[in-house]
């Protein structure tokens, strides 16, 4: 019994907490993806690069003396006009073509390629790490928990909660859900659909940027960080159900726990194949994912 308690206190619990902080971060990135898909019916393949841009903005602004707490607001706000312009300037150009899924996927794939290279040009290919804004660790019932991880988990959960409340309980959220459910009906009832589309895309991108700011001190900053991370986010979105908020949260937290715990049992290099295996299995058994789609009850 004590052996198990020791195992729990020193091995399992820290691993699960690390998994939880990763899970919260993945959910933040995946939320943007799933909202964009739910409303616009667009797979944003460049989402990971927006996450990387957020992290790089935080890094460079942080080095020039801007406080971390300010960055939490500045960076997402700065991402909004970028996302707005990408939606209006690029995505809308191909939005009404017959094969929207494939065309927008290709377009954002190209955009991601360009953004990643631009990051390499501007910031260099090397890995950089901003200082941790909150140092120290706390003792939580005998389990050691770094303060910044605790902060990350709390802030992440608060943001996820806020997004859910805005989407489900406010008039603004109702407008977005209406546009997702029936674009033409919403437009004829006076919803400015084109602006809602662009702003929703911008909002999703801003969430990715915010995740970038929050995660930069934990995972370091490098040009391909987005590509590596967004694979996991895609998996979460698929398992949870494309366009479902609740599904994304549940799947994000579950999958990262699977990843964290499985890496204790088998070699950590196999945790990615396990998670992808779950995704493929999910697609075969229940392609629509755990939950339904945004605006579709």
């Amino acid at each position, binding site marked *: 019994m004590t052996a198990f308690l020791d195992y729990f206190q020193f091995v399992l619990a820290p691993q699960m907490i690390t998994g939880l902080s990763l899970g919260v971060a993945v959910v933040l990135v995946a939320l943007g993806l799933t909202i964009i*898909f739910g409303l616009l019916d667009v*797979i944003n393949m460049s989402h990971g690069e927006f996450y990387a841009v957020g992290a790089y903005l935080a890094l460079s602004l942080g080095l020039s003396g801007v406080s971390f707490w300010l960055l939490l607001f500045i960076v997402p706000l700065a991402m909004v006009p970028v996302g707005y312009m990408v939606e209006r300037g*690029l995505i809308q*150009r*191909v939005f009404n*073509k017959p*094969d929207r*899924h*494939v*065309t927008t*996927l*290709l*377009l954002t*794939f*190209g*955009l991601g*390629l*360009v953004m*990643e*290279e*631009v990051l*390499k*040009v501007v910031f260099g290919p090397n890995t950089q790490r901003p200082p941790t804004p909150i140092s120290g660790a706390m003792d939580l019932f005998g389990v050691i928990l770094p303060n910044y991880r605790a902060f990350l988990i709390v802030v992440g959960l608060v943001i996820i909660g806020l997004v859910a409340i805005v989407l489900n309980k406010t008039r603004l959220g109702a407008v977005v859900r209406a546009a997702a459910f029936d674009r033409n009906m919403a437009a004829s009832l006076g919803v400015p659909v084109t602006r809602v589309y662009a702003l929703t895309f911008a909002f999703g991108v801003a969430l990715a940027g915010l995740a970038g700011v929050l995660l930069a001190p934990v995972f370091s900053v490098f040009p391909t960080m987005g*590509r590596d991370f967004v*694979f996991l986010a*895609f*998996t979460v979105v*698929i398992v949870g159900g*494309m366009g479902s908020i609740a599904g994304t949260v549940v799947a994000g937290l579950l999958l990262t726990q699977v990843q964290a715990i499985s890496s204790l049992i088998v*070699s950590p*290099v*196999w945790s*990615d*194949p396990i998670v*992808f*295996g779950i*995704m*493929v299995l999910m*697609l*075969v058994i229940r*392609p629509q994912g755990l939950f339904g789609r945004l605006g579709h009850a």
Partner: protein
Amino acid sequence: MRDSANIMKTETATDRLGLAMRASHVLVAVFVVAALAFAAIGSWSGDTFFLRLATEALIFAGFALSVDILLGYTGLLSLGQALYFGLGAYVSAVVLKEVPSFWAAMGAALVSALVIGFVTGLVANRVRGVYFALVTFGLAQVAAKAVYNTRSLGASDGLIGVPIVPIDIGVTTVMSNSPVGFFLFTLAFIVVLYAICAYLLDTPFGRVLVALRANEARVPFLGYSTRHARLAAYVLAAVIATLSGALYPMLRGFVSPELLFFSTSGNAVITVVLGGVGTLVGALYGGVILTILKSVVGSMTEHHLIVIGLLFMGTVIFLPKGLMGFVRPRVERLISGKSK
């Protein structure tokens, strides 16, 4: 009177498709002539580097052909076609290291493509659209990670020391390390792959695929099985990709897990989109364009992906049918003008 008008109409309709394919054949002939001229110049000047680069371009063009079969004929975007390219490369490398026989390597690659293509095809074809893109992506990712972590397959280093093989093609024997010889062999091989695809897509099976892309819900009502047609197209694409991949270790003498990575699949998609989706010949031209872009722009700046990415985005927005969407209608007019 009305009946005869209808018949006239269907005749011209089938002619449109046949004409487009004839134009593709003409463009392949132009491609072959240009490649032969290139080979002649290359062997005359004793060049090795550019011939081997061009051979690699051809191999990746053959690989892109498989993406075009899926995207251009069934409308399904595969983001994990590298799975089969890598499968071919690894099977070929493993076999060649045991028995240095070209036909044994190709035979093993073909069998593995049929088996793995069939099994993964059953999985991937359960879903459509975006999900198909993501499930193929996931399958390739699992395979890449598995190879990357398997010691007996060289793990992250890949397999090196694939021997030079003699390729016995009846009339003569080509050594895989001869720059001109292997270039010409690869050219012939890719043209045969093209011919097989073009032939199969011209049969009733091919017409079912075209119908699938146009209106999948309607095809079963016309008495055709969509599941069989889609699975057959998937396996065909897997075979084409695997056979192209099997040539890779013969050219380079090694295989690495990068061949299975997303960037390989992504490159094939870029190739097809630049060249022209649904034309088959677009994959060949796209492969050459991409290789030229990479080496020319790559010699000026190491950030050539910015140029390629912007060009790719521009193609998606302004030239959705790619280079062939621009060139092929002109060739069609040329041919139909001649036949009149």
